[in-house]
């Protein structure tokens, strides 16, 4: 492909237009409120970013394969609750309890995936039911009360929620998790054989199956990966704030899907971009943070968030139409 053509297709790509909007947004917030780019505020944003961002990586792969998962917010809440109960009431070792939490997340993802692929029910219905089951389980086993989390420093706390001061910036280990997992996801989707399969399955499942691609197995593993990432994000969050709440992560599923589609991944499958998802995650984080700083009244946040998401999606759709015409 000639350089000129490649450049123009990059500029027209959805992740690029998202990036432009992100920069504009950051500039507007920075101009309206000086504190937006202060070390404290940036450190704050970077502390929250990985928790939803990590889930969004799994969701991007799942959406690219043509499925999605509404149970991630509930898994985000359940995993730390179960781990902490095992430690505090069961007297389990924290390492073993974390392992049990991992197994639980794998099981939830596997059940989602098996029902979607083997019984053929849409992932919307399956994971919506799973959301209720998982959230209900978290509420029931805690009787609705938040648990005190693991606040003794130790290997696992440092691993998941340790922090590091660089100058006046404070970085959590979770950011490294997010960066590492992002690089891995980019590699998978763009350069690995698996990524080729994921895109093909979402683009035309029958075609992929006709070429010997094990579509169901790939989907089941993607459901498992998404669930595990949601559980990991939940643990990171619980360790950071030293508390595990059964209602943690409520509504995260929609926020995560918004991040992914704002970044340019198609809800219908076949076209996914991890870079776009990272931009989308940064954008939603910046919006949530920025509108507070610029003085939008608290109860009006969601109006703005919703409108900006809608505007992004309209922009993607228009660009797509344009690209199809040229």
């Amino acid at each position, binding site marked *: 492909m000639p350089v000129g053509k490649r450049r123009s297709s990059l500029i027209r790509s959805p992740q690029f237009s998202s990036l432009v909007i992100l920069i504009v947004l950051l500039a507007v917030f920075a101009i309206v409120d000086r504190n937006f780019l202060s070390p404290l505020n940036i450190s704050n944003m970077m502390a929250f970013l990985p928790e939803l961002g990590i889930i969004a990586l799994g969701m991007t792969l799942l959406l690219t394969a043509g499925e999605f998962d509404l149970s991630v917010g509930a898994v985000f809440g359940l995993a730390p609750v179960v781990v902490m109960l095992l430690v505090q009431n069961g007297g389990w070792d924290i390492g073993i309890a974390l392992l049990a939490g991992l197994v639980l997340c794998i099981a939830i993802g596997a059940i989602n995936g098996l029902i979607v692929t083997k019984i053929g029910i849409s992932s919307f219905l399956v994971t919506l039911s799973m959301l209720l089951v998982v959230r209900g389980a978290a509420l029931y086993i805690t009787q609705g009360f938040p648990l005190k989390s693991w606040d003794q420093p130790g290997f696992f706390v440092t691993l998941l929620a340790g922090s590091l001061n660089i100058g006046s910036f404070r970085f959590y280990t979770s950011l490294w998790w997010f960066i590492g997992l992002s690089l891995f996801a980019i590699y998978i989707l763009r350069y*690995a054989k698996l990524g080729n399969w994921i895109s093909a399955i979402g*683009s035309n499942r029958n075609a992929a199956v006709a070429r010997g691609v094990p579509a169901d197995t790939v989907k089941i593993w993607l459901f498992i990966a998404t669930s595990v990432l949601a559980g990991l994000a939940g643990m990171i969050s619980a360790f950071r704030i030293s508390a595990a709440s059964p209602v943690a992560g409520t509504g995260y599923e929609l926020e995560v899907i918004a991040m992914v589609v704002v970044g340019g991944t198609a809800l219908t499958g076949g076209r996914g971009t991890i870079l776009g998802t990272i931009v989308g995650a940064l954008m939603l984080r910046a919006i949530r943070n920025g509108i507070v700083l610029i003085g939008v009244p608290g109860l009006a946040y969601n109006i703005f968030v919703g409108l900006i998401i809608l505007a992004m999606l309209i922009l993607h759709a228009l660009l797509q139409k344009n690209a199809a015409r040229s």
Partner: protein
Amino acid sequence: MDVLRLQNLQKSFGSVCALKNASLTLREGEVVALLGDNGAGKSTLIKAISGVFPVDRGDIFVRGEKVSIRSTRDAMDLGIETIHQDTSLAPDLSIARNLFLGREPVNFGWLGVFAPLDLAKLRKAASEVLKRVGISKKLDADALVSTLSGGERQSIAISRAMQFAAKVIILDEPTNNLGVEETHGVLRFVKEVRDAGHSVLLITHNIHHVFQVADRIIVMRRGEIVAEQIVADTDLLTVESIITGADMSALLKEARAK
């Protein structure tokens, strides 16, 4: 030598019996046309051979050996390449990635599904395939399939079957939606493949095409094989009357008398 032999294949979808007792043989280096009206069971038959779904009953022999085809991968490994009626490409992938879908060239193969694609090899092989097939317009191996015309997509699917030099190539209505030039391209391809010693099973509704390229005709009706004709010994009207099952003998006599 029989390359492919099907014996009493049966397949039902719920109460619909799509295939009853279908048996046929495909020899080396011959083109067999599979004809029949809509819903006769042609696509069902070839989907069973290519591993899309298992048959309820019946045996499949490849080169005289009984085989069990449980997945599309099994069929491909036995040298059976199929171009399905409902297009078999992923529109959001590039031409190159489609050509090698399921058989990607990779580095570090021991990484399994996590192995990195050998992108240079992929692109090079793809442009060679495109050149060999001689698609009239020059296509870019990196172009997305969604930007191609129906005919161009069909040509890509055909070149993919060709590139893996399958023993048996099955084409389900390959000339559907094709322009005149592309149609001739497909028919030329069928002849080339036969001359190279491969066997072709061709499904089509266009009897004229059949008489141009096929050696033998097999007619299906309501899930059964109802007739077999050698192309050299038959004519268009006879075949048409067999397909519809209508009594066309009067018409036939009239036509012959002329």
